Every structure is written in structure tokens, then in C-alpha cells.
């Protein structure tokens, strides 16, 4: 399968933070979710991919092209939503249309206004007076209206109520109906990604701790709940990390089926992505 986005050994060092050896491969037709705590490196990774910050080392290819040599060509075909940055709030959807018509070769006015209408956004009101959900929908409408092939979305569901989140997840799944497209989406709301993401990449302290298909993660990983004595019997190679709670141990295992075969496991729960994330961050080995 051809990759629509490829990141190899991306590194970037700051005074107080370092992004180490990030590798990402997003096949066409797929949605990849990047999860991690705030400050874990999700935004830095996305900013590097968009060439907003200069990586210290690494190779990035989008649509099979070098991201720096073909920057504007690539950006014609990318739709971007950034959490904390957009056009001025003193512009109306109409104004934005006038501007974007000049900027994107493929800007589709009809499609844009269809989104604006579907999202119930007032065309001639400046977005300053919009609710946070409406502002996000405006960003998404703009990101989708030039027929992009790749969507790069930084926290696109933050600040949205459950109904709006649901609508937006629907739009992303509609978008991916075309197998030649792809979505890279970061979120700290893991339940959003749990449903729609095909691949989950988990970044912690600037490093990728795991990157797997959603199914591998949710169907194979397990959380063993056991007592201290039972925990002593588990060989260290058979679990990923454990977290000691007041009454029991939560032990994260990579393959719950093999674990069950090997140990007379008492309780093995199906984990949520959030639980996996928590044990990774808070747990010990």
C-alpha cells in the first residue's frame, strides 16, 4: 500500500523539550490518530510536517514528494486545521471565500458555501461572535473546500460539544470514503479516535511509544487486574507496564489471548485507548 504521508527519523531539539526519532507512515485511505498528553510532542510533530518549524533532522514525504522542495505544490492539496491558529476573527465566511479564491487553485466556492450552510454558519457575520463550535466548523469548512487529498488536523474536536463532535467525525469518515485520501489527526480526546482512527500513534515525552492499528490495540491488548501475589508470578517479559492501585495491580499486556493461555489469568479487561495511555504514562516496569 502506498503511503500518503511518511515521516522518517524526525528529530527536533529545544531547550526544554526534544522530539526524538519520530517515524510515521500513513497509508492511503486511512485515518491516523496521534494521541498523547498536552506537551508530549503532537503539535511539534504536526508543525514539523507542515514545515512551520525547521526539524533538526529527518525526512518527510507527502504524496511521495519531499516536503520542502515541493512545499507549495504539496500545500495545494492539504487541508489543515490548527487548534490555536486561523485567519482573523474579523473576517466573515464571505470574506474568507474572496480571499481563498485567490489562494487555492482548486478552491470550490459552491462546496464551501454548502459546508457553511450545512454547518448553519451565518455567511456575513464576523467569526468573532461565533461559538467555539462554530469557529471550529468554519475552520473545517475552509480546510475541506479545495478538494484536499490529505487532511492534517490538530485537535479538531477540542471545545466541541458531543453533538458537534459527532457531526465532525462523520465528515471525516465521509472524506475518507475516497481511498486515495488520508487524514492525520491529533487529539487528546482519545474516545474520538477510538472510533474512527485506523491507526493510533501514541507520543509520550517526544517519542513514539507505540503505533499500531486500532484493532491490534483494542482487540489484542489487555489489562490484567490482579493481586500483589498474582502479580509476582508474572514474568517481566510478558507485560508492558503495570500500575499499582490501592487494591489491585493493573497490568498492561500486549496480547491478552497468549497471556490467558500462559497464565491462569483472573480478570483480563478489554482496554480503552485512554487506559492504555494512562498505564503507559503513569505505570512502571
Amino acid at each position, binding site marked *: 500500500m502506498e503511503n500518503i504521508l511518511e515521516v522518517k527519523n524526525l528529530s527536533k531539539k529545544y531547550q526544554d523539550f526534544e522530539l526524538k526519532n519520530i517515524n510515521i507512515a500513513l497509508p492511503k485511505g486511512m485515518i491516523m490518530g496521534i494521541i498523547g498528553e498536552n506537551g508530549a510532542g503532537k503539535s511539534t510533530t504536526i508543525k514539523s510536517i507542515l*514545515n512551520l*518549524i525547521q526539524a533538526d533532522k529527518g525526512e518527510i514525504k507527502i504524496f511521495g514528494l519531499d516536503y520542502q522542495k515541493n512545499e507549495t505544490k504539496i*500545500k495545494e492539496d492539504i487541508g489543515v486545521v490548527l487548534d490555536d*491558529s*486561523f*485567519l482573523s476573527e474579523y473576517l466573515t465566511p464571505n470574506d474568507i471565500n474572496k480571499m481563498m479564491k485567490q489562494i487555492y487553485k482548486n478552491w470550490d466556492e459552491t462546496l464551501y458555501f454548502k459546508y457553511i450552510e450545512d454547518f448553519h454558519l451565518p455567511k456575513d457575520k464576523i467569526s468573532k461572535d461565533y461559538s467555539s463550535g462554530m469557529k471550529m466548523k468554519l475552520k473545517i469548512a475552509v480546510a475541506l473546500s479545495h478538494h484536499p487529498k490529505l487532511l492534517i488536523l490538530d485537535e479538531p474536536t477540542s471545545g466541541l460539544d458531543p453533538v458537534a463532535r459527532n457531526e465532525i467525525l462523520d465528515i471525516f469518515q465521509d472524506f475518507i470514503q475516497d481511498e486515495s485520501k488520508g487524514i492525520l489527526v491529533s487529539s487528546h480526546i482519545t474516545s474520538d479516535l477510538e472510533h474512527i482512527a485506523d491507526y493510533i500513534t501514541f507520543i509520550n515525552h517526544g517519542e513514539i511509544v507505540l503505533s499500531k492499528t486500532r484493532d491490534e490495540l483494542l482487540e489484542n491488548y489487555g489489562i490484567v487486574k490482579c493481586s500483589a501475589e498474582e502479580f509476582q508470578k508474572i514474568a517481566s517479559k510478558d507485560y508492558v507496564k503495570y500500575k499499582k492501585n490501592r487494591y489491585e495491580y493493573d497490568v498492561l499486556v500486549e496480547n491478552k489471548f497468549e497471556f490467558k493461555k500462559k497464565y491462569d489469568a483472573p480478570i483480563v479487561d478489554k482496554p480503552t485507548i485512554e487506559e492504555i495511555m494512562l498505564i503507559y504514562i503513569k505505570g512502571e516496569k
Partner: protein
Amino acid sequence: MNSIKGLIIKDLLQLKSYRKTLIVFILIFIAVSISQESTVEIGNMLVLMMTLGLGMFSIATFNYDEMSKADRYLLTLPLTRKQVVRAKYALVIGSTIVGSLIGIILSSIITFVMSKNVPNLLDLGLMSLGGILGIGLIESIQIPCIYKFGTEKGKIQMFIVTAGIALLAGGLFYMGEKANLPIGNLFESLNQFLPFVLIIAVVVMYGISYRISVGIFSKKEI
């Protein structure tokens, strides 16, 4: 070219909410100018104020951009960093020139209405060139400072740089006087070429400023 047009459209539409303020501002200028005694002063005043006003007005778009961190978003569009800077300079220089043209037109009308004299367009033109030079100097220092330090901190840096240049120029002038160099004569003899000297000075100034801004913005981590 279209991309730059798009960016300028964005900035102009952004300022739309300022339209009323702008009209009030022009009316006040006219009122202040009319209160002056001689029509020559009215003309000069208006030209300078309009040039300064519109120039500064366009600089305000930097504040809008900063508020919504627009630079970061703009660079996710198919735009180069150079284009983003170039569009800003086009906007600022354009509004400064338009401002001085409006000033010339307004003051001509007022002169004509008040004194029935035909305005001296050459004088007004020279005045506006001088105005553009002065205001252009401020802008040329201000824009790179904004790119480097942001609009808030940029203001302080700008005053430091402007004060520095003023002191330097004053110092040189003073030293020249002391050393009995014929500086006064130099200005005298330049007088007949004044329009050309001013035009060249304005172009060089903006050119250097643009280069510096592109240099800063290209390396900026957004």
C-alpha cells in the same frame, strides 16, 4: 501574484470593521486642517496626516494577524514565506501612497473652496513625498521589528532603533558642523534634485527593510 492578491484582500477585508473609524478620522483631519490660518498650511497638514494615518492603519493588520496567530495558519496554505512578507509591504506601501494621494486631493479641494486659489500641486506633491519619506522611515523600521519581536515588543524595539538612528544622524550632523563641513550647502545644492533624491531614498529604505523582514520571517519558527 494571485496569492499576494488574496493576502491583500484578506487584510483589506479585515480592516472593513474600521471603515467608520477611518471616515471619522478623515473628518477630524479636515476639521483640524481647516482651523489652520493659511491654506498652504492646510494643504501640508492634510497631506501629512493622511499619509501617516493610512500608513499606520495598514500596520494595524499586524495586530489582527497576531491576535489569531494567522501567520502560522497562512503558511499551511500554498504560500511561501516571501509572499506573505511581500503582501504586507505591498499593503503598507500602497496605503501610504493612497493616503498621500487622498491628502493631495482633499487639500486641493479645500484650498480651492476656501480661497478660490488654484492649489500648487508641485508643492503638495513635494510635501507628500517628504511625508512618505518620513512615514516610510518609521514603517521600514517598524515592520522588521514586528516580524522579529511581535507587535507589542516590536513597538519598544522600534522606538529604540528610531531613537538610535535619530541620535546617529544628529551626531553626524553636529560633528559635520563642528568640522566645518559644508552640510548646509550640500542640502542647498540638493534642493533642485529634491524630488528624485526623495524617491530614491524611499525606494532604498523600503527595499532594505523588505530584505531584512524576509530574512527574519524565513527563519522564524512559527
